[in-house]
C-alpha cells in the first residue's frame, strides 16, 4: 500500500517537474521571440541570480520572504474562513432549499462583478487593513466552494436516503450519515481550487488597498523600475501557490483512494 502511495507521489512530482521545465522554456521562448530587452524581461537565470548569487542576495531574500509571509497570512485567513463558511452554508442550504433559491442568484450576481471592481467597494466599506483584505479573499473563495460542496451534498442517491428514512432516521441523520460523506470529494476539490483564487484575491487586495505583501511589492517595483524585484516576487508567489496546490491535490487523491477502499 505505502509502496503504491510512494510511487503515486513520485509520479505526480515527476509530472510537475516536467511541466515546470516546459513553463520555464515558454518563459524564455516568449522573451526571445518578442525580442524583449533583458533590462525589462528578466530570464530565469536573472531571477536566480537576484535571489541566490548577487552580492546582496541575502537582503533580497529577506525582503521577499517578509512580503511572502504577509501575503500567505492575507490569503490564509480568508481561505480558511471562506471555506468554513461555504461548508456551513452548504449544509444549511441542503436542509433548506428555499433559502438557497433566495440567496444563490444574488450570490451569482455578486460573484460576476469583476474582483478589481469589487475591491474598491469593499475597501470603502471595511477600510484599508486586514478586515478588507480578508473580506475580499473570503468572497473569492466562498462562492465557488459553496456551489461545489452543495453539489456534493446533493449527489446522495435516493436509495441511500430512503434507507435511512425507512429505518426511522431524520433528515438530520441523512445529512450526517449519507450526505456529508458524499460531499468529501467535492469539498477536497474546492479546497484545492480555492488556493490560486485565494492568492489572487489577496494579491489584488494588497495591490489596490493595503500596499503590503507581494501584491504591494510588485506594484511598487513596477512603479520604480525595480524589474528584478518584480520578476522575483511574481515567480515566488506563483511557485508557492503551485506548491500548495500540488500538496492539496496529492492529499485529495490519497484521501479519495482511502474512501474508495473503505466503502
Amino acid at each position, binding site marked *: 500500500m505505502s509502496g503504491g502511495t510512494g510511487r503515486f507521489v513520485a509520479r505526480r512530482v515527476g*509530472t*510537475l517537474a*516536467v*511541466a*515546470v521545465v*516546459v*513553463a520555464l522554456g515558454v518563459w524564455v521562448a516568449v*522573451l526571445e521571440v*518578442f525580442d*524583449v530587452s533583458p533590462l*525589462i*524581461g528578466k530570464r530565469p537565470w536573472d531571477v536566480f541570480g537576484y535571489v541566490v548569487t548577487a552580492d546582496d542576495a541575502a537582503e533580497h531574500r529577506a525582503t521577499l520572504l517578509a512580503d511572502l509571509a504577509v501575503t500567505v497570512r492575507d490569503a490564509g485567513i480568508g481561505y480558511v474562513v471562506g471555506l468554513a463558511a461555504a461548508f456551513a452554508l452548504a449544509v444549511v442550504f441542503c436542509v433548506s*432549499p*428555499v433559502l438557497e*433559491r*433566495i*440567496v*444563490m*442568484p*444574488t450570490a*451569482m*450576481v*455578486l*460573484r*460576476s*462583478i*469583476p*474582483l*478589481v*471592481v*469589487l475591491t*474598491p*467597494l469593499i475597501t*470603502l*466599506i471595511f477600510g484599508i487593513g486586514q478586515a478588507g483584505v480578508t473580506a475580499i479573499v473570503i468572497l473569492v473563495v466562498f462562492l465557488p466552494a459553496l456551489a461545489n460542496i452543495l453539489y456534493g451534498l446533493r449527489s446522495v442517491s435516493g436509495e441511500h436516503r430512503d434507507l435511512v428514512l425507512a429505518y426511522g432516521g431524520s433528515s438530520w441523520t441523512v445529512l450526517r450519515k449519507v450526505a456529508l460523506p458524499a460531499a468529501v470529494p467535492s469539498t477536497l476539490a474546492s479546497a484545492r481550487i480555492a488556493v*490560486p483564487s485565494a*492568492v*489572487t484575491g489577496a*494579491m*489584488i487586495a*494588497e*495591490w*489596490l488597498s493595503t500596499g503590503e505583501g*507581494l*501584491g504591494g511589492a*510588485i*506594484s511598487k*517595483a*513596477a512603479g520604480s523600475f525595480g*524589474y528584478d524585484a*518584480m*520578476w522575483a*516576487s*511574481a515567480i515566488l*508567489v*506563483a511557485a508557492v*501557490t*503551485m506548491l500548495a*496546490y*500540488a500538496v492539496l491535490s496529492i492529499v485529495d487523491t490519497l484521501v479519495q483512494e482511502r474512501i474508495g477502499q473503505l466503502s
Partner: protein
Amino acid sequence: MSVAVARFRGALARPWVGGTVGIALLLALWWAMTAGLENSTSFPSPVDVARSAVADGWGFYEANVVPTLTRAAQGYLWGNLAGLALAAVVLVVPRLEDVITQLGVISACLPVTAIGPIVMVIFGGRASAIFLGALLVFFTTLVGAILGMRSASRSSLDLVAAYGGGRWTQIRKVQLMSALPAIVTALQVAVPAALLGAVVGEYLGGIDSGIGVALNAAQRQIQPDRVWALSILAGLIALGGYALVGLVGRVLTPWAKEKRG
C-alpha cells in the same frame, strides 16, 4: 393559512421568483444600511447611484464599455482557442494529459496582479488587458474540455470499436459529443473571467478609456456614486454574457439537456 404558506414556499422555490426576492432583499438591505449616512463619501444609497448613472448618461458609459468589451472579447477568443487547442492535443495524444493539465495549473497559479505589470512593461497597456483576459480564460476552458472528453462512456467507445470504427470515429462520434456540454459550461465561466482580466489590465494603466480606467478615475476624484454604478454595470455585463453563452450553448448542444436537468 397553511395552504397559502405552502404556496408561497413553492413559489419561492422557482428560480426566477426566488432570485428576484433575493435581489430585492439585497437592494432593501443596501438602502437600509445607507439610510443613516447622509451624503456618505464611501457608501452611497441605491438612489444616488441610479441618479449618477442617469446623469452620466449613455455617452459616458458607451465610451468606456465598448473598449473594455472589445478587449475582453479578444482575450476570450485567444484564451479559449489556446485552451481548446491544447485539449485537442490531449484528445489525440492522451498520454500528454497529465503534463498539459499541470501546465494549465501553473498558468492558474500565476496571479494576474503579478503577471500584469510584467506584460504591461513588455507589450504595453492594450495588449496586457487582452493577455490577462486570455490567461484567466485558458485554464478553465482547458480543464473543462479535458474533463468533458473523459466523461465519454467506456461502453460507447467500445461500441464504436466493435463496429469497426477507428480512433478518429471514436473521437468524432463519442468524445467530442460528450465534451461539448462541458465545453459550453467552461465557455460560460470564461465570460466573467475575460472581463476581469480586461479590467485588471486597464487598471494597470497605459490606456485612455475603458471600465477600469473610468473606475480608477472615479475613485481618485472621490465619486463613490459612479464607482458603484460602474461596478454594478460590469457585474450585469458579465452576468448577461454568462447567460447568453449558456443559451447559445443549450441551443447548439440539445443532446445535453437531460444531463443538465
